[in-house]
């Protein structure tokens, strides 16, 4: 058994201390094997804002990796050696190479590809993608090698015990809504010949709310749920500390929607054929003493 926790959209400046409350609970009560931060160190991913994030994490990022968000990419630089990168994000995680954190930087690659990686844990593969600069262009920003890398990551281990984690989600409900620009990425998660899904679910943030979708098909995922054999679950949890977005736009989730509470997604990787996922609800006013409850209809069991 290995427990993985996801929080997103709650670190940096001008966001209060919810992210500290959540991560302290995870460390104290959650027995984490890995903590994933889904991105956005506010306001602009500056080095000083990453320092605030480090303080919010109590100076310890040894269990943490971060899929960069659009706010991380607001402070960016370009060089011949690196391509365009989020410079505050790069410098911060370069200070904490594994094992000081779980976030690697591949200095042989350029742009967001430098931060894409996977972690194999208890028979499952967690694939981390960088969709942070989505407002400047859709993933993979013209870099075909990233598509090839993703296909290899999805197919070099057998079965569907794979999770794709990024800041943006193909489907989402909130102020932002669906990201049609991610359709190429979404379609890459299916076998190009048979159309069979290659992953169990995707997990993202960006909208500061919780949206849980049943399995969605390769074509027109907003159209509705299909059997798991033909679709991939879509989970969104951006309720990690920086307020809430209401369900203004985007595909209505068929399993659950929440725009009132601060939440952590818990993934229990039991073995290579089994995992449970649920969403821990810390309420609208989390305190250091808060014990979360499981959000209604948020528990999903994967059995292959």
């Amino acid at each position, binding site marked *: 058994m290995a427990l993985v926790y996801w929080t997103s959209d709650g670190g940096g400046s*001008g*966001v*209060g*201390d*919810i992210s500290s*409350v959540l991560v302290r609970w995870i460390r104290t009560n959650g027995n984490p094997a890995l903590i994933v931060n889904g991105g956005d160190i*506010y*306001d602009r991913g500056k080095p000083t804002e990453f320092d605030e994030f480090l303080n919010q994490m109590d100076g310890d990022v040894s269990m943490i990796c971060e899929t960069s968000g659009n706010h991380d990419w607001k402070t960016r630089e370009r060089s011949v050696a690196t391509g365009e990168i989020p410079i505050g994000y790069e410098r911060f995680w370069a200070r904490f190479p594994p094992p000081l954190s779980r976030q690697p930087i591949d200095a042989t690659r350029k742009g967001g590809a430098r931060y894409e990686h996977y972690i194999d844990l208890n028979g499952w593969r967690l694939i981390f993608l960088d969709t942070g600069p989505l*407002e400047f262009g859709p993933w993979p920003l013209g870099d075909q090698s990233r598509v090839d890398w993703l296909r290899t990551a999805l197919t070099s281990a057998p079965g569907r015990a794979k999770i794709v984690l990024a800041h943006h989600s193909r489907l989402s409900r909130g*102020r932002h809504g669906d990201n049609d620009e991610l359709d190429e990425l979404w379609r890459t998660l299916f076998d190009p010949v048979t159309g069979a899904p290659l992953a169990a679910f995707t997990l993202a943030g960006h909208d*500061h709310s919780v949206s849980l979708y049943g399995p969605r098909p390769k074509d027109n995922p907003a159209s509705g749920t299909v059997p798991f054999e033909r679709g991939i679950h879509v989970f969104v949890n951006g309720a990690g500390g*920086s*307020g*809430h*977005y*209401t369900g*203004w736009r985007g595909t209505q989730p068929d399993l659950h929607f929440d*725009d*009132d509470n601060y939440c952590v997604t818990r993934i229990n990787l039991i073995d290579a054929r089994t995992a449970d996922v649920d969403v821990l609800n810390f309420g*609208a*006013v*989390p*305190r*250091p003493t808060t014990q979360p409850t499981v959000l209604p209809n948020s528990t999903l069991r994967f059995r292959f």
Partner: protein
Amino acid sequence: MKKLHVTQDDYGFWELSLEDDDGSLTLLAHQFVDPSHLIQDAHEMVLQGELPDAVVVVDPPRRQVHRTGAWPADYRKPAPKKAGA
């Protein structure tokens, strides 16, 4: 004319509301401790073409929201609100 209102609720948290052409109000975001994120959101919605003709209206701050330890236990999602109201 559509308007995007960035205002404070009764607890001091910041919220974002959309006023439609007919005057109806919709809450888009709530419980932010600082207005800067919502001001940025509102301007992005205009500049990126989601609400290209909307006007952004921001209330001056009236009170500061403290750290979570001092947050009101009875917080509830607020009603949408116009700036200056």
